[in-house]
């Protein structure tokens, strides 16, 4: 496996959306930018701010499958674009 890129965790890091994260890059969820009724099903499935989330595949139609807390969850692209995430540094990743 390729070494993960080392990113300094500071204010200069631009905000990322889950939809822009390359496959197999584990990230941390910062916030869910969706109305409560649409965010709820995600929260229920363990997609919570602060959790580690990793896109593992994308569907024939280009929608992502992400891995959260050991389970696989299929999202729609539009939903992935509403999840603000940030990259983890290598040291955090190791824990």
């Amino acid at each position, binding site marked *: 496996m390729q070494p993960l890129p080392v990113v300094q965790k500071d204010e200069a890091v631009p905000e990322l959306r889950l939809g822009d994260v390359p496959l197999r890059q584990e990230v941390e969820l910062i916030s869910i930018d*969706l109305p*409560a*009724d*649409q*965010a*709820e*099903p*995600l*929260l*229920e*499935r*363990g*997609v*919570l*701010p*602060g959790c580690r989330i990793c896109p*593992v*595949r*994308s*569907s*024939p*139609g*280009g*929608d992502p*499958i992400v891995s959260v*807390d*050991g*389970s*696989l*969850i*299929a*999202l*729609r692209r*539009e*939903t992935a674009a509403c999840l603000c995430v940030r990259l983890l540094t290598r040291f955090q990743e190791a824990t």
Partner: protein
Amino acid sequence: MPSLAIDPCVSCSEHREQSLVRLGLSPDKWDYLIALAGNPNVGKSTVFNQLTGLRQHTGNWPGKTVVRAEGAFGHKDNRVKVVDLPGTYSLQAGSVDEEVARDFVLFGRPDVTVVVVDATRLERNLNLVLQILEITDRVVVFLNLMDEARRHGIALDPKRLEAELGVPVVPGTARDGQGIDALLDTAHEVAMGGRTTAPYRPERQAPEVERAITRLVPVIEDVFDDVPNARWVALRLLNADEAVQEAVRSGELGQLSREDFDEERPVPEPEDRQRVLDSATRLRWELPPDFHDLVTEHAYRAAEEIAQKVQKRGLAKAGFDLDRKLDELLTSPIFGFPLMLFILAVVFWLTIEGANVPSSMLATLLIDNVHGWLSGVATSMGTPWWLQGFLLDGVYLSTAWVISVMLPPMAIFFPLFTLLEDFGYLPRVAFNLDSLFQKAGAHGKQALTMCMGFGCNAAGVVATRVIDSPRERLIAIITNNFSLCNGRWPTQILIATIFIGALVPAELGGLVAAAAVVGIALFGIVMMFLSSWLLSRTVLRGEATSFSLELPPYRPPRILQTLYTSVIDRTLIVLWRAIVFAIPAGAVIWLSSNIMIGDLSIAAHAVEWLNPMGLLIGLNGVILVAYIVAIPANEIVIPTVLMLTVLTTGVAGGEGAGVMFELDSVPATGELLRAGGWTLLTAVNIMLFSLLHNPCSTTIYTIYKETRSAKWTSVATLMPVAMGVTVCFLVTQVWRLLAG
């Protein structure tokens, strides 16, 4: 039953066989009531089956138990009733299944609620546990799938979890029956009050919320003096939860404290109850605007904290590797769709080929032998010809047809479908097709109900309960009919073999015919997308809601159990419904072809009257009449067509007016149909019309039951007919134009 409590070997499995007396379906009386709750896909139904000995179908896709199932068993001299609730992620009552689950925990007064928890996904599962703990004290947590957790390198400490949650925690693996004894004993203790619990309740909310709660709680306690958890009620009222508001309004809330629920408590005065609601409404104004999010996040944080205290994750992820490889293949951008088509084709092929022999054996037995024998008996008893004709030729024969045509393919299709389901393939299909469904404005889970429809549309319509959004659920219900169901396959195959297979050399005939049938099924899928799209652009306007679907781990299907359950709870139920509807159809067919008006029977009049209309759309009067009388059961279309063809053309053959029959050989059937004026165009059109016409009466009835709306039932019934007539008309006109 003697008491076995002092037996020294109470914990071994032999003992369980004795102490656990499976009572099957729900008894009239019970000593205590267990509610089984849990997230989807955590093995709740497996626990239920272990307890009751029932073989409720357990499927590997979220939302399998769409209605609650009930069962019972005897344990330690007690009759215990178990209610299996639909799997839900929360009790927010956002969808039909969540509502069912929540209402039962709240108002069903279970003596103990067993929450089945997936040990490999503790954090997420705990969220539901905490919500249930807020409602009731009498909870036992069953930590299921401990074997999978071990395989995935997750170490759990059940004792620690027990201490954190304040209710008993029993670890086990329900599939192998591990932990079921302990679960039973613990549930028994809790239900009988032998063990008191001190459930964890998230203490402090955000300050503003906490202030509102402390002001509302005294009001609630004042009115409902013994409500078990006024804090929870307060929070739900502040959240404007309709079910709880209604419980306050009706006074039902006061009946919830269940220590002595034999005696009804006095219901508080209406003005007092209104006072509670008014205070809640007033306090709601003082809450911060993101109040709902605050409360939700608070709950999830608590679940996360507890989970982290009790589990350790190792690095072993070997178990996921195979899953990942499979997913790479099955949801691959390149192979995903072809593999899906291939699997679909294999399932159809196995169904068609495998059903041939048993179908003809059943037909020989029921139609040739038993019918002949019954007729002989009736004649020798001197039964009048009209009674014999009505009962044997009408009612008996139509039932016999339905059984012999429908039973074998269903007995093959449903188990195959169930195996795919158990294995975990169906959610992947839903995932693959989701982007298409999204473009059509429909829900991704519609893929699941569509697949189900290939077996039986009525079953597909019921399955739409897994879709939360009412708009998207209606679309799924209305368009389910475009999945070519088992009742319609035989017509497709027969006609394709006679007219389309005959176009090519004999050795290719079978293959071409099969391809034509798969083509029709695919055309059905296209029409389903098209009509979903049209509906969501017109009468059911709206954006597709955001959609997320859990892809469960692949699990090896249990072949024998699958065979048993899918035969019992799908095949036989569907078959029974079909028979019930086929009986009146048989009666109508016989009567209409034997009651004469002038010198023609009613059926002949109808055929003549509908013939011009039929010819216009490339069919004929016989086919239209057959489709009208076959509304109750699509299986009898072909026998009815043959009978009516003989009746109206006077071609030699057949068994007499009103007697349905099928010819022994396919070529002979072809000759008869050609004599009746059929051409290749008729064949193409009947295949299209068989796909695009009204659902059978069982399905129509099911649609009405599910939607409770005459309007949507009519739309679901008439829309496909209109499409069928249009498509057939267009095909016919273009065909005739091209043929010159």
